[in-house]
Protein backbone atom coordinates (compact mmCIF):
# COMPACT_ATOMS: atom_id res chain seq x y z
CA UNK A 1 0.00 0.00 0.00
CA UNK A 2 1.46 3.40 -0.91
CA UNK A 3 2.27 5.88 1.82
CA UNK A 4 -0.82 8.02 2.45
CA UNK A 5 -0.57 11.60 1.34
CA UNK A 6 -1.97 13.76 4.15
CA UNK A 7 -3.41 16.32 1.77
CA UNK A 8 -4.77 13.94 -0.80
CA UNK A 9 -8.30 14.48 0.40
CA UNK A 10 -8.03 18.23 0.68
CA UNK A 11 -8.08 18.98 -3.02
CA UNK A 12 -11.76 19.27 -3.44
CA UNK A 13 -14.19 18.43 -0.65
CA UNK A 14 -17.65 19.80 -1.24
CA UNK A 15 -20.17 20.19 1.55
CA UNK A 16 -23.78 20.25 0.44
CA UNK A 17 -26.95 21.00 2.35
CA UNK A 18 -30.46 22.37 1.97
CA UNK A 19 -29.67 24.49 5.00
CA UNK A 20 -27.02 27.10 4.30
CA UNK A 21 -26.11 27.48 7.94
CA UNK A 22 -25.22 23.82 8.42
CA UNK A 23 -23.42 23.59 5.08
CA UNK A 24 -21.33 26.69 5.66
CA UNK A 25 -20.63 25.68 9.26
CA UNK A 26 -19.47 22.19 8.38
CA UNK A 27 -17.23 23.60 5.66
CA UNK A 28 -15.80 26.00 8.27
CA UNK A 29 -15.17 23.08 10.61
CA UNK A 30 -13.31 21.13 7.92
CA UNK A 31 -11.29 24.21 7.00
CA UNK A 32 -10.39 24.77 10.64
CA UNK A 33 -9.31 21.11 10.83
CA UNK A 34 -6.86 21.58 7.96
CA UNK A 35 -8.93 20.66 4.93
CA UNK A 36 -7.61 23.15 2.42
CA UNK A 37 -10.47 23.48 0.01
CA UNK A 38 -13.73 22.63 1.71
CA UNK A 39 -16.55 24.57 0.08
CA UNK A 40 -20.27 24.75 0.67
CA UNK A 41 -22.63 24.26 -2.25
CA UNK A 42 -26.42 24.44 -1.87
CA UNK A 43 -28.02 21.11 -2.77
CA UNK A 44 -30.11 22.84 -5.42
CA UNK A 45 -26.93 23.78 -7.33
CA UNK A 46 -25.01 20.59 -6.64
CA UNK A 47 -25.03 19.13 -10.16
CA UNK A 48 -23.39 22.24 -11.56
CA UNK A 49 -20.55 22.04 -9.07
CA UNK A 50 -19.99 18.33 -9.61
CA UNK A 51 -18.88 18.98 -13.19
CA UNK A 52 -15.33 19.02 -11.82
CA UNK A 53 -14.01 15.98 -9.97
CA UNK A 54 -14.19 16.10 -6.20
CA UNK A 55 -12.49 13.80 -3.73
CA UNK A 56 -15.57 13.65 -1.53
CA UNK A 57 -18.97 15.17 -1.08
CA UNK A 58 -20.21 15.70 2.49
CA UNK A 59 -24.00 15.88 2.76
CA UNK A 60 -25.59 17.36 5.88
CA UNK A 61 -29.20 18.38 6.55
CA UNK A 62 -30.33 17.15 3.14
CA UNK A 63 -33.99 16.32 2.61
CA UNK A 64 -33.63 14.40 -0.65
CA UNK A 65 -30.69 12.08 0.02
CA UNK A 66 -31.48 9.99 -3.03
CA UNK A 67 -31.08 12.99 -5.35
CA UNK A 68 -27.69 13.79 -3.82
CA UNK A 69 -26.72 10.15 -4.16
CA UNK A 70 -27.66 10.10 -7.84
CA UNK A 71 -25.83 13.34 -8.64
CA UNK A 72 -22.70 12.19 -6.84
CA UNK A 73 -22.90 8.76 -8.44
CA UNK A 74 -23.00 10.23 -11.93
CA UNK A 75 -19.96 12.37 -11.06
CA UNK A 76 -18.15 9.42 -9.49
CA UNK A 77 -17.87 11.21 -6.14
CA UNK A 78 -18.15 9.29 -2.89
CA UNK A 79 -20.62 10.82 -0.43
CA UNK A 80 -20.31 11.07 3.34
CA UNK A 81 -23.79 11.60 4.73
CA UNK A 82 -23.76 13.27 8.15
CA UNK A 83 -26.97 12.50 9.97
CA UNK A 84 -28.59 11.70 6.63
CA UNK A 85 -30.21 8.31 6.34
CA UNK A 86 -29.71 6.02 3.38
CA UNK A 87 -31.95 3.18 4.37
CA UNK A 88 -33.34 1.00 1.64
CA UNK A 89 -32.08 0.18 -1.80
CA UNK A 90 -29.50 2.51 -3.36
CA UNK A 91 -30.92 5.03 -5.80
CA UNK A 92 -30.51 4.32 -9.49
CA UNK A 93 -27.08 5.46 -10.66
CA UNK A 94 -26.01 5.87 -7.07
CA UNK A 95 -22.40 5.93 -6.02
CA UNK A 96 -20.70 5.11 -2.77
CA UNK A 97 -22.35 6.40 0.36
CA UNK A 98 -20.91 6.44 3.86
CA UNK A 99 -23.20 7.22 6.75
CA UNK A 100 -22.00 9.06 9.81
CA UNK A 101 -24.30 9.93 12.68
CA UNK A 102 -24.50 13.64 13.45
CA UNK A 103 -23.49 12.65 16.98
CA UNK A 104 -20.05 11.53 15.76
CA UNK A 105 -16.97 13.50 16.73
CA UNK A 106 -15.01 15.52 14.15
CA UNK A 107 -11.98 13.19 13.98
CA UNK A 108 -14.20 10.38 12.68
CA UNK A 109 -15.37 12.53 9.76
CA UNK A 110 -11.80 13.61 9.02
CA UNK A 111 -10.63 10.03 9.14
CA UNK A 112 -13.25 9.00 6.60
CA UNK A 113 -12.30 11.90 4.32
CA UNK A 114 -8.60 11.08 4.59
CA UNK A 115 -9.24 7.47 3.70
CA UNK A 116 -11.42 8.43 0.77
CA UNK A 117 -8.68 10.80 -0.37
CA UNK A 118 -6.27 7.87 -0.35
CA UNK A 119 -8.63 5.91 -2.53
CA UNK A 120 -9.78 3.56 0.22
CA UNK A 121 -13.30 2.49 0.79
CA UNK A 122 -14.56 2.43 -2.78
CA UNK A 123 -15.24 -1.25 -2.48
CA UNK A 124 -15.29 -1.79 1.27
CA UNK A 125 -17.95 0.66 2.32
CA UNK A 126 -18.93 -1.13 5.52
CA UNK A 127 -15.42 -0.73 6.89
CA UNK A 128 -15.71 3.00 6.58
CA UNK A 129 -19.14 3.45 8.03
CA UNK A 130 -18.82 5.43 11.25
CA UNK A 131 -20.52 4.06 14.27
CA UNK A 132 -20.33 6.98 16.69
CA UNK A 133 -22.54 7.05 19.72
CA UNK A 134 -25.49 5.92 17.56
CA UNK A 135 -29.12 6.93 17.66
CA UNK A 136 -29.97 5.35 20.97
CA UNK A 137 -30.47 7.90 23.72
CA UNK A 138 -29.93 7.09 27.34
CA UNK A 139 -33.17 7.75 29.13
CA UNK A 140 -32.30 7.06 32.71
CA UNK A 141 -29.54 6.65 35.20
CA UNK A 142 -30.35 2.96 35.11
CA UNK A 143 -30.00 0.94 31.91
CA UNK A 144 -33.37 1.93 30.50
CA UNK A 145 -33.04 3.38 27.03
CA UNK A 146 -35.62 4.91 24.77
CA UNK A 147 -35.13 5.07 21.05
CA UNK A 148 -35.52 8.42 19.36
CA UNK A 149 -38.92 7.36 18.04
CA UNK A 150 -40.08 6.26 21.48
CA UNK A 151 -39.01 9.64 22.87
CA UNK A 152 -41.07 11.32 20.16
CA UNK A 153 -44.07 9.16 21.03
CA UNK A 154 -43.70 9.95 24.75
CA UNK A 155 -43.43 13.67 23.97
CA UNK A 156 -46.68 13.54 22.02
CA UNK A 157 -48.39 11.48 24.71
CA UNK A 158 -47.32 14.15 27.20
CA UNK A 159 -49.14 16.70 25.06
CA UNK A 160 -52.26 14.57 25.20
CA UNK A 161 -52.11 13.59 21.52
CA UNK A 162 -54.05 10.44 20.62
CA UNK A 163 -52.73 7.42 18.71
CA UNK A 164 -54.27 8.40 15.38
CA UNK A 165 -52.80 11.91 15.54
CA UNK A 166 -49.42 10.57 16.66
CA UNK A 167 -49.42 8.29 13.62
CA UNK A 168 -50.17 11.21 11.32
CA UNK A 169 -47.63 13.55 12.89
CA UNK A 170 -44.82 10.99 12.83
CA UNK A 171 -45.78 9.60 9.44
CA UNK A 172 -46.19 6.04 10.72
CA UNK A 173 -49.12 3.64 10.93
CA UNK A 174 -51.42 3.44 13.98
CA UNK A 175 -50.24 -0.15 14.45
CA UNK A 176 -46.66 1.03 14.68
CA UNK A 177 -47.72 3.66 17.21
CA UNK A 178 -49.38 0.96 19.28
CA UNK A 179 -46.23 -1.12 19.06
CA UNK A 180 -44.12 1.81 20.27
CA UNK A 181 -46.53 2.43 23.12
CA UNK A 182 -46.40 -1.23 24.16
CA UNK A 183 -42.59 -1.07 24.13
CA UNK A 184 -42.70 2.09 26.21
CA UNK A 185 -45.02 0.55 28.77
CA UNK A 186 -42.65 -2.39 29.06
CA UNK A 187 -39.46 -0.36 29.27
CA UNK A 188 -40.91 2.12 31.74
CA UNK A 189 -42.71 -0.58 33.72
CA UNK A 190 -45.92 1.38 33.34
CA UNK A 191 -49.46 0.02 33.43
CA UNK A 192 -50.99 2.82 31.38
CA UNK A 193 -50.09 5.63 29.02
CA UNK A 194 -50.55 8.06 31.87
CA UNK A 195 -48.07 6.15 34.02
CA UNK A 196 -45.66 5.98 31.09
CA UNK A 197 -45.70 9.77 30.70
CA UNK A 198 -45.08 10.30 34.41
CA UNK A 199 -42.27 7.70 34.40
CA UNK A 200 -40.64 9.25 31.32
CA UNK A 201 -40.59 12.66 32.99
CA UNK A 202 -38.91 11.17 36.08
CA UNK A 203 -36.30 9.42 33.93
CA UNK A 204 -35.58 12.57 31.98
CA UNK A 205 -34.87 14.42 35.22
CA UNK A 206 -32.48 11.65 36.29
CA UNK A 207 -30.63 11.91 32.98
CA UNK A 208 -30.26 15.67 33.20
CA UNK A 209 -28.90 15.39 36.72
CA UNK A 210 -26.66 12.46 35.99
CA UNK A 211 -23.41 13.88 34.61
CA UNK A 212 -20.86 16.62 35.21
CA UNK A 213 -19.03 17.43 31.95
CA UNK A 214 -16.37 20.09 31.54
CA UNK A 215 -17.50 23.56 30.39
CA UNK A 216 -15.89 25.44 27.48
CA UNK A 217 -12.75 27.50 28.18
CA UNK A 218 -13.15 30.64 30.28
CA UNK A 219 -12.19 32.89 27.36
CA UNK A 220 -14.89 31.58 25.03
CA UNK A 221 -17.12 34.55 24.22
CA UNK A 222 -19.73 32.43 22.49
CA UNK A 223 -20.95 29.03 23.60
CA UNK A 224 -22.75 26.77 21.17
CA UNK A 225 -25.08 24.06 22.40
CA UNK A 226 -26.44 21.31 20.16
CA UNK A 227 -27.07 17.70 21.19
CA UNK A 228 -25.42 16.32 18.03
CA UNK A 229 -21.68 16.63 18.54
CA UNK A 230 -20.66 17.12 14.91
CA UNK A 231 -23.26 19.81 14.27
CA UNK A 232 -22.32 21.53 17.53
CA UNK A 233 -18.65 21.61 16.55
CA UNK A 234 -19.54 22.82 13.06
CA UNK A 235 -21.68 25.69 14.30
CA UNK A 236 -18.96 26.74 16.75
CA UNK A 237 -16.44 26.70 13.89
CA UNK A 238 -18.78 28.75 11.72
CA UNK A 239 -19.42 31.33 14.42
CA UNK A 240 -15.69 31.39 15.19
CA UNK A 241 -15.20 33.03 11.80
CA UNK A 242 -16.47 36.28 13.32
CA UNK A 243 -13.14 36.53 15.10
CA UNK A 244 -14.67 35.73 18.48
CA UNK A 245 -13.82 32.59 20.34
CA UNK A 246 -16.73 30.20 19.97
CA UNK A 247 -16.75 26.86 21.75
CA UNK A 248 -18.99 23.85 21.49
CA UNK A 249 -20.68 22.71 24.71
CA UNK A 250 -20.18 19.04 25.49
CA UNK A 251 -23.46 18.88 27.42
CA UNK A 252 -26.64 20.87 28.00
CA UNK A 253 -25.56 24.47 28.54
CA UNK A 254 -27.47 24.89 31.79
CA UNK A 255 -25.24 22.31 33.48
CA UNK A 256 -22.07 23.89 32.17
CA UNK A 257 -23.08 27.41 33.17
CA UNK A 258 -23.43 26.21 36.73
CA UNK A 259 -19.73 25.34 36.65
CA UNK A 260 -18.60 28.60 35.01
CA UNK A 261 -20.29 31.49 36.87
CA UNK A 262 -18.97 34.19 34.50
CA UNK A 263 -20.40 32.37 31.50
CA UNK A 264 -20.09 33.52 27.88
CA UNK A 265 -21.21 36.78 26.25
CA UNK A 266 -23.68 34.86 24.12
CA UNK A 267 -25.18 31.39 24.12
CA UNK A 268 -26.33 29.93 20.81
CA UNK A 269 -28.70 27.00 21.18
CA UNK A 270 -29.75 24.64 18.39
CA UNK A 271 -31.29 21.21 18.03
CA UNK A 272 -34.68 19.61 18.46
CA UNK A 273 -35.07 20.62 22.11
CA UNK A 274 -33.63 24.11 21.85
CA UNK A 275 -36.62 25.70 23.61
CA UNK A 276 -36.25 23.23 26.50
CA UNK A 277 -32.59 24.09 26.79
CA UNK A 278 -33.38 27.80 26.76
CA UNK A 279 -35.89 27.36 29.57
CA UNK A 280 -33.34 25.43 31.63
CA UNK A 281 -30.73 28.16 31.13
CA UNK A 282 -33.17 30.97 31.81
CA UNK A 283 -34.05 29.46 35.18
CA UNK A 284 -30.64 30.49 36.47
CA UNK A 285 -29.38 33.11 34.01
CA UNK A 286 -31.97 35.75 33.27
CA UNK A 287 -29.53 38.22 31.67
CA UNK A 288 -27.47 35.96 29.39
CA UNK A 289 -28.12 36.81 25.71
CA UNK A 290 -29.61 33.71 24.07
CA UNK A 291 -29.95 33.02 20.36
CA UNK A 292 -31.80 29.98 19.04
CA UNK A 293 -31.03 28.43 15.67
CA UNK A 294 -34.13 26.58 14.51
CA UNK A 295 -35.65 25.00 11.45
CA UNK A 296 -38.29 27.66 10.91
CA UNK A 297 -41.16 25.77 12.50
CA UNK A 298 -43.65 28.30 13.95
CA UNK A 299 -44.26 26.09 17.00
CA UNK A 300 -40.56 25.97 17.72
CA UNK A 301 -40.28 29.75 17.39
CA UNK A 302 -43.17 30.25 19.80
CA UNK A 303 -41.69 27.78 22.29
CA UNK A 304 -38.29 29.49 22.07
CA UNK A 305 -39.76 32.93 22.73
CA UNK A 306 -41.88 31.62 25.58
CA UNK A 307 -38.83 29.93 27.08
CA UNK A 308 -36.98 33.24 27.08
CA UNK A 309 -34.85 33.30 23.91
CA UNK A 310 -33.73 36.78 22.84
CA UNK A 311 -33.41 35.88 19.20
CA UNK A 312 -34.29 33.21 16.66
CA UNK A 313 -32.73 32.51 13.28
CA UNK A 314 -33.48 29.73 10.85
CA UNK A 315 -30.87 27.29 9.63
CA UNK A 316 -31.67 28.05 6.00
CA UNK A 317 -30.20 31.51 6.54
CA UNK A 318 -26.54 32.02 5.67
CA UNK A 319 -23.93 32.26 8.39
CA UNK A 320 -23.73 36.01 7.83
CA UNK A 321 -27.35 36.34 8.96
CA UNK A 322 -26.50 34.43 12.14
CA UNK A 323 -23.51 36.74 12.75
CA UNK A 324 -25.83 39.73 12.38
CA UNK A 325 -28.46 38.23 14.69
CA UNK A 326 -25.78 37.33 17.24
CA UNK A 327 -24.53 40.93 17.31
CA UNK A 328 -28.03 42.32 17.67
CA UNK A 329 -28.91 39.94 20.48
CA UNK A 330 -25.71 40.81 22.30
CA UNK A 331 -26.70 44.45 21.89
CA UNK A 332 -29.96 43.83 23.69
CA UNK A 333 -32.28 43.55 20.67
CA UNK A 334 -34.95 40.90 20.20
CA UNK A 335 -34.47 39.21 16.83
CA UNK A 336 -37.24 37.41 14.95
CA UNK A 337 -37.07 36.53 11.23
CA UNK A 338 -39.24 39.22 9.57
CA UNK A 339 -41.20 36.67 7.56
CA UNK A 340 -42.12 34.82 10.77
CA UNK A 341 -43.14 37.84 12.86
CA UNK A 342 -46.81 37.76 11.96
CA UNK A 343 -47.01 34.02 12.66
CA UNK A 344 -45.30 34.50 16.02
CA UNK A 345 -47.62 37.31 17.11
CA UNK A 346 -50.66 35.31 16.04
CA UNK A 347 -49.37 32.28 17.97
CA UNK A 348 -48.82 34.38 21.09
CA UNK A 349 -52.35 35.76 20.84
CA UNK A 350 -53.83 32.28 20.37
CA UNK A 351 -51.79 30.92 23.28
CA UNK A 352 -52.96 33.72 25.56
CA UNK A 353 -56.59 33.10 24.62
CA UNK A 354 -56.17 29.38 25.38
CA UNK A 355 -54.52 30.25 28.66
CA UNK A 356 -57.40 32.50 29.67
CA UNK A 357 -59.90 29.81 28.73
CA UNK A 358 -58.01 27.11 30.62
CA UNK A 359 -57.67 29.30 33.70
CA UNK A 360 -61.40 29.87 33.68
CA UNK A 361 -62.00 26.08 33.55
CA UNK A 362 -59.46 25.39 36.27
CA UNK A 363 -61.12 27.94 38.55
CA UNK A 364 -64.25 25.76 38.53
CA UNK A 365 -62.47 22.85 40.23
CA UNK A 366 -63.03 22.35 43.94
CA UNK A 367 -60.05 21.78 46.22
CA UNK A 368 -60.78 18.03 46.22
CA UNK A 369 -60.96 17.95 42.42
CA UNK A 370 -57.59 19.71 42.22
CA UNK A 371 -56.13 16.98 44.42
CA UNK A 372 -57.62 14.44 42.02
CA UNK A 373 -56.07 16.27 39.09
CA UNK A 374 -52.66 16.19 40.82
CA UNK A 375 -53.02 12.43 41.26
CA UNK A 376 -53.98 12.05 37.60
CA UNK A 377 -50.84 13.90 36.56
CA UNK A 378 -48.80 11.61 38.83
CA UNK A 379 -50.17 8.64 36.88
CA UNK A 380 -52.23 7.16 39.72
CA UNK A 381 -55.00 4.75 38.82
CA UNK A 382 -58.45 4.76 40.38
CA UNK A 383 -57.65 2.45 43.29
CA UNK A 384 -54.45 4.30 44.18
CA UNK A 385 -56.39 7.52 44.02
CA UNK A 386 -59.05 6.17 46.36
CA UNK A 387 -56.35 5.12 48.83
CA UNK A 388 -54.63 8.50 48.68
CA UNK A 389 -57.87 10.42 49.17
CA UNK A 390 -59.26 7.92 51.71
CA UNK A 391 -62.47 7.50 49.73
CA UNK A 392 -64.09 4.58 47.93
CA UNK A 393 -63.07 3.76 44.34
CA UNK A 394 -66.57 4.74 43.28
CA UNK A 395 -66.18 8.19 44.84
CA UNK A 396 -62.75 8.58 43.26
CA UNK A 397 -64.28 7.75 39.89
CA UNK A 398 -66.97 10.38 40.43
CA UNK A 399 -64.31 12.98 41.23
CA UNK A 400 -62.44 12.06 38.06
CA UNK A 401 -65.58 12.37 35.96
CA UNK A 402 -66.26 15.80 37.47
CA UNK A 403 -62.71 16.93 36.71
CA UNK A 404 -63.03 15.81 33.10
CA UNK A 405 -66.40 17.52 32.72
CA UNK A 406 -65.26 20.81 34.23
CA UNK A 407 -62.06 20.89 32.18
CA UNK A 408 -64.05 19.88 29.08
CA UNK A 409 -61.70 17.07 28.17
CA UNK A 410 -62.48 13.49 27.18
CA UNK A 411 -59.81 11.45 28.90
CA UNK A 412 -57.60 11.35 31.98
CA UNK A 413 -54.56 11.65 29.72
CA UNK A 414 -55.98 14.79 28.15
CA UNK A 415 -56.72 16.26 31.59
CA UNK A 416 -53.16 15.58 32.74
CA UNK A 417 -51.77 17.13 29.56
CA UNK A 418 -53.89 20.24 30.04
CA UNK A 419 -52.75 20.55 33.65
CA UNK A 420 -49.10 20.24 32.64
CA UNK A 421 -49.36 22.63 29.73
CA UNK A 422 -50.87 25.40 31.81
CA UNK A 423 -48.99 24.76 35.04
CA UNK A 424 -52.18 24.09 37.01
CA UNK A 425 -50.44 22.07 39.67
CA UNK A 426 -47.88 24.78 40.36
CA UNK A 427 -50.70 27.24 40.80
CA UNK A 428 -52.42 24.83 43.15
CA UNK A 429 -49.25 24.36 45.15
CA UNK A 430 -48.64 28.10 45.29
CA UNK A 431 -52.15 28.75 46.53
CA UNK A 432 -53.28 30.72 43.50
CA UNK A 433 -56.84 30.56 42.22
CA UNK A 434 -58.63 30.31 45.55
CA UNK A 435 -60.65 27.13 45.57
CA UNK A 436 -64.38 27.22 45.36
Amino acid sequence: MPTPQPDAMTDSVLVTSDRALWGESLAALLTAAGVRAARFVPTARLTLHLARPVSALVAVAVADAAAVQRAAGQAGAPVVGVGVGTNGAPARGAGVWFALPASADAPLLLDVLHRLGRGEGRSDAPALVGRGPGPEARASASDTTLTRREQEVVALLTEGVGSQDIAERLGISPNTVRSHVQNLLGKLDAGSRLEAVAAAERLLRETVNGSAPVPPPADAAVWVSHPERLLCLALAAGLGRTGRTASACAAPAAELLAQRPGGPELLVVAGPDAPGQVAAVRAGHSELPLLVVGDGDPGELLAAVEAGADGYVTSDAPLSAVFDAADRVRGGEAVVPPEMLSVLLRSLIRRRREEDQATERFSRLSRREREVLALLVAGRDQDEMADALVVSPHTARTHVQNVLRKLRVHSRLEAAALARRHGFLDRFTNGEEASS
Partner: protein
Amino acid sequence: MTLDADARPSRRPGLTMERTASGGRLRDGVTEVCALNPTALALWELCDGEIAVQEIVDAVSEAFSLDEDVARADVEATLVQLGELGVITGLGPADAP
Protein backbone atom coordinates in the same frame (compact mmCIF):
# COMPACT_ATOMS: atom_id res chain seq x y z
CA MET B 1 -53.59 59.47 20.74
CA THR B 2 -55.05 56.43 22.45
CA LEU B 3 -56.88 53.74 20.55
CA ASP B 4 -59.74 51.73 21.96
CA ALA B 5 -58.08 48.62 23.39
CA ASP B 6 -61.06 46.53 22.34
CA ALA B 7 -61.10 47.80 18.74
CA ARG B 8 -60.61 44.99 16.22
CA PRO B 9 -59.19 46.52 13.04
CA SER B 10 -59.59 44.90 9.63
CA ARG B 11 -57.47 44.88 6.50
CA ARG B 12 -58.97 46.74 3.56
CA PRO B 13 -60.47 44.10 1.25
CA GLY B 14 -58.88 43.58 -2.13
CA LEU B 15 -55.29 44.37 -1.15
CA THR B 16 -52.54 41.91 -1.93
CA MET B 17 -49.21 41.68 -0.21
CA GLU B 18 -45.82 41.07 -1.77
CA ARG B 19 -42.96 40.31 0.59
CA THR B 20 -39.65 42.05 -0.05
CA ALA B 21 -36.22 42.03 1.56
CA SER B 22 -37.09 45.16 3.53
CA GLY B 23 -40.65 44.20 4.51
CA GLY B 24 -43.39 44.19 1.91
CA ARG B 25 -45.58 46.10 -0.50
CA LEU B 26 -49.35 46.34 -0.53
CA ARG B 27 -51.06 46.54 -3.89
CA ASP B 28 -54.58 47.24 -5.03
CA GLY B 29 -54.65 45.45 -8.35
CA VAL B 30 -51.54 46.62 -10.14
CA THR B 31 -51.32 49.86 -8.15
CA GLU B 32 -48.85 49.96 -5.28
CA VAL B 33 -50.56 51.44 -2.24
CA CYS B 34 -47.60 51.53 0.16
CA ALA B 35 -44.39 49.86 1.26
CA LEU B 36 -44.22 48.63 4.85
CA ASN B 37 -41.38 47.61 7.14
CA PRO B 38 -41.50 44.09 8.62
CA THR B 39 -43.21 45.16 11.85
CA ALA B 40 -45.88 47.24 10.12
CA LEU B 41 -46.45 44.41 7.67
CA ALA B 42 -46.88 41.90 10.51
CA LEU B 43 -49.39 44.16 12.27
CA TRP B 44 -51.30 44.67 9.00
CA GLU B 45 -51.49 40.88 8.61
CA LEU B 46 -52.92 40.59 12.14
CA CYS B 47 -55.79 42.95 11.34
CA ASP B 48 -58.45 40.33 10.62
CA GLY B 49 -61.36 41.97 12.43
CA GLU B 50 -61.16 39.44 15.29
CA ILE B 51 -57.96 40.37 17.10
CA ALA B 52 -58.21 43.29 19.54
CA VAL B 53 -55.66 46.09 19.77
CA GLN B 54 -54.91 45.05 23.35
CA GLU B 55 -54.11 41.52 22.19
CA ILE B 56 -51.66 42.88 19.63
CA VAL B 57 -50.04 45.05 22.31
CA ASP B 58 -49.66 42.06 24.64
CA ALA B 59 -48.15 39.90 21.89
CA VAL B 60 -45.67 42.58 20.78
CA SER B 61 -44.73 43.19 24.40
CA GLU B 62 -43.98 39.49 24.90
CA ALA B 63 -42.25 38.90 21.56
CA PHE B 64 -39.85 41.81 21.99
CA SER B 65 -39.62 41.83 25.80
CA LEU B 66 -40.95 45.38 25.91
CA ASP B 67 -42.79 47.14 28.72
CA GLU B 68 -46.48 47.21 27.94
CA ASP B 69 -46.54 51.02 27.72
CA VAL B 70 -43.71 51.02 25.19
CA ALA B 71 -45.35 48.26 23.16
CA ARG B 72 -48.69 50.08 23.26
CA ALA B 73 -47.15 53.32 21.99
CA ASP B 74 -45.41 51.51 19.11
CA VAL B 75 -48.43 49.43 18.15
CA GLU B 76 -50.85 52.37 18.30
CA ALA B 77 -48.56 54.61 16.27
CA THR B 78 -48.21 51.92 13.61
CA LEU B 79 -51.92 51.14 13.46
CA VAL B 80 -52.80 54.82 13.18
CA GLN B 81 -50.37 55.14 10.27
CA LEU B 82 -51.91 52.10 8.61
CA GLY B 83 -55.32 53.68 9.12
CA GLU B 84 -54.11 56.93 7.56
CA LEU B 85 -52.76 54.98 4.60
CA GLY B 86 -56.21 53.50 4.23
CA VAL B 87 -55.04 49.89 4.41
CA ILE B 88 -56.94 49.07 7.62
CA THR B 89 -60.28 50.13 9.07
CA GLY B 90 -62.05 49.67 12.38
CA LEU B 91 -59.76 51.56 14.74
CA GLY B 92 -62.73 53.37 16.26
CA PRO B 93 -62.69 57.14 16.74
CA ALA B 94 -58.99 57.30 15.89
CA ASP B 95 -59.44 56.38 12.25
CA ALA B 96 -62.16 58.94 11.74
CA PRO B 97 -60.98 61.92 9.69
